[in-house]
């Protein structure tokens, strides 16, 4: 409020704003109570798991808690030469505690992830400790170094030091086929081991083209729906929605029946002589299958927002365009099309976001060249049990979607979205 505006009072002399707030408070509380259950539900099922996912993806506290003394004594070590006696001593004392708790295996596993070769030398050290072969009155450094030659290699001690921080970005780097090398520099993995980047690119590519196909097919349908008389448009609407009401698995399975090499579509192609019987094209277990099935499944998400926007465009606008001298194409392109942009934006955003995280369909009809990043996430959730890696990829996907949303907002404006 500018200083010039005089404070307005009610007839009773209370400032108007305060009075207004008081009068509205009850309604506000009522409104809040109405949404409170949903809010609570969202916090428990959405906000909280995402937070949990995030901490899991960067969490590296386990080893920090296992080797507290070692990391403390390592603080003064410059990391160039072998560490001093003190570090060896505290490492041994940490290690003994772990042996008592039978947790030395976990340590070996974690360190081996950092650098290959730790499993062997930890086992060797464990045997020495178990047999009480290490004499604490003499130089512990010398004794540990004798256990295995790798304990004399400074690189292994550097690896231990790298695990000191309680948080790590390693999972995120791994998801982009990168890692932190010995000098703490971000490095690319060798070319033959890069799998994730291909998956990311493929995911974006598939989502993009599925959106394009959905748009190309959905726009005319939506236009027809919006302009047909009620009795026909209702029937057509049911045709559009029918797949929507069918189980996703059933639809995907039916695509498998249609698209496989001995399937209906191939049979038809052979029948009309388009392809030879012994040269049936593969339309499944590759990208083609993913495209076809996903486009069909996501089509209603394009048609519905487009339809709801087109329904509000008065037919007299097109007529006006024509009566003013525009050819039907000009009238469409200059008048009708710009008015459907809010629907196009909503539909494309919806389809793209759904497509980028699609899982079941690519898993079933995608084969090796048609799987997407979500399949990789599921693989790590279920098979390798590397949940923190799966969380990292999931979060990257989520932030990607948010970035797309942000760009869209900058370009078109979210206010212009019309979902229905």
């Amino acid at each position, binding site marked *: 409020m500018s200083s010039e505006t005089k404070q307005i009072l009610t007839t009773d002399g209370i400032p108007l704003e305060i009075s207004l707030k008081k009068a509205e408070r009850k309604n506000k509380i009522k409104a809040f109570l109405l949404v409170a259950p949903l809010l609570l539900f969202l916090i428990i099922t959405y906000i909280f798991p995402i937070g949990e996912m995030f901490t899991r993806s960067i969490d590296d506290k386990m080893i920090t808690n296992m080797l507290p003394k070692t990391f403390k004594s390592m603080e003064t070590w410059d990391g160039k030469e072998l560490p001093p006696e003190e570090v060896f001593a505290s490492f041994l004392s940490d290690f003994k505690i772990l042996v008592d708790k039978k947790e030395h295996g976990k340590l070996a596993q974690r360190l081996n992830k950092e650098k290959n070769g730790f499993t062997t030398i930890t086992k060797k050290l464990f045997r020495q400790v178990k047999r009480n072969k290490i004499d604490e009155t003499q130089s512990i450094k010398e004794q540990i170094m004798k256990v295995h030659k790798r304990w004399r290699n400074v690189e292994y001690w550097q690896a231990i030091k790298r695990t000191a921080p309680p948080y790590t970005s390693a999972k995120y780097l791994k998801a982009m086929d990168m890692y932190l090398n010995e000098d703490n520099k971000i490095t690319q993995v060798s070319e033959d081991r890069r799998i994730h980047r291909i998956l990311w690119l493929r995911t974006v590519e598939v989502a993009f083209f599925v959106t394009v196909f959905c748009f190309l097919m959905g726009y005319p349908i939506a236009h027809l729906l919006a302009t047909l008389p009620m009795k026909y448009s209702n029937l057509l609407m049911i045709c559009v929605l029918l797949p929507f009401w069918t189980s996703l698995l059933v639809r995907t399975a039916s695509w498998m029946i249609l698209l496989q090499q001995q399937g209906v579509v191939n049979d038809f192609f052979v029948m009309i002589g388009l392809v030879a019987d012994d040269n049936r094209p593969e339309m499944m277990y590759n990208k083609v299958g993913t495209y076809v099935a996903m486009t069909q499944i996501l089509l209603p998400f394009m048609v519905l927002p487009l339809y709801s926007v087109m329904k509000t465009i*008065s037919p*007299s*606008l097109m*007529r*006006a*365009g*024509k*009566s*003013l*001298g*525009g*050819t*039907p194409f*000009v*009238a469409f392109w*200059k*008048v009708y099309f*710009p*008015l459907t942009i809010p629907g196009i934006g909503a539909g494309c955003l919806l389809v793209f976001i759904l497509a980028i995280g699609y899982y079941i369909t690519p898993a079933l009809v995608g084969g090796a060249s048609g799987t997407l990043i979500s399949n990789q996430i599921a693989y790590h959730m279920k098979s390798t049990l590397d949940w923190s890696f799966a969380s990292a990829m999931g979060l990257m996907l989520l932030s990607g979607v948010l970035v797309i949303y942000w760009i869209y907002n900058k370009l078109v404006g979210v206010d212009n979205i019309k979902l229905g």
Partner: protein
Amino acid sequence: MSKNIEFVKFDKVDKSYDGKVLVVKDLNLDISEGEFITMLGPSGSGKTTCLMMLAGFETPTNGEIYLDSNPISNIPPHKRGIGMVFQNYALFPHMTVYENLAFPLKVRKIQKDEIDKKVDKALSMVSLSGFESRMPAQLSGGQQQRVAVARALVFDPAVVLMDEPLGALDKNLRESMQYEIKHIHENIGVTVVYVTHDQGEALTMSNRIAVFNDGKVQQLSSPDKLYEEPVNSFVAEFIGENNTFGGEVIDISKGVCKVKLNNGEILANPISVNAKGDKTTVSIRPERALINPKDKMDNNQKGKIEEVIYHGDHTRLRINLLGNKEFILKVPNSSNELDLKLGNEINVGWNSQDARALDPK
């Protein structure tokens, strides 16, 4: 240059949407150049269909429409060069006022500075100069309406069609817009075909009015003739107020006939009755019947006042006259000497010339 009196010509036009019912039946209508013609009629009478056929959005089922002697049935709407003002204005909501007006000029590939000039001229014609950069949503209903008119005129079309353009405006605005459109028409002399169901609008604005009913033109004439001399009882009923008596002709001579009602006899002007025994509806305008007439009138009847309604400048009386309980009289409020009380008996008189014996209802 002499004006083409058949500038727009509907020649035996039929129109049916479903192949069962004719919406427009055998329409013959000539519109001369520079004329303001109104198609007036109740909804569903076929007037809008006629307009849409002229604009090219509907095709005649039979017959032909000529524009400046050229048949236009096979010309698509965008090549007809007919301006149109739509019922809901149909301004392009994503374009500014300037872009809306420039649209018909741009699609005609007119030079930019020429466009600017024409848009300026059209906007000043509807007194909206300075509104170029507004969006339609930022304008009031009346302003949007004026932009729509300017847009329909900006490319100098030979004919402008207006489809109930004032329907969405409130009463005062509607009246002032009526005059404004009338003046624009007078100034630039464009041919206007105007569709409305509001008879007041039609009477104020038009050179000629075509009254539509049931897919047919019932009467085509100037506003005053339409009001004073309706040719059938539909027109008499539809235009203005009207008192009617149903009866049978019992005597007919030149210029006057005697009509027998259920309880009385009146003299009337035979319009569509020819012989004794014809059934007829006699129509009298409320202002043509006077109370206690000073001049001699050939119809004089006694009636009982059933209702008195005060209307500011005049008072309306509902009278029970010759068995018609809905006989309306309009009494100017300056004549104070009358005793207009409920239940009073009064003398009502009218000339037989003003009582038109039309076709029976």
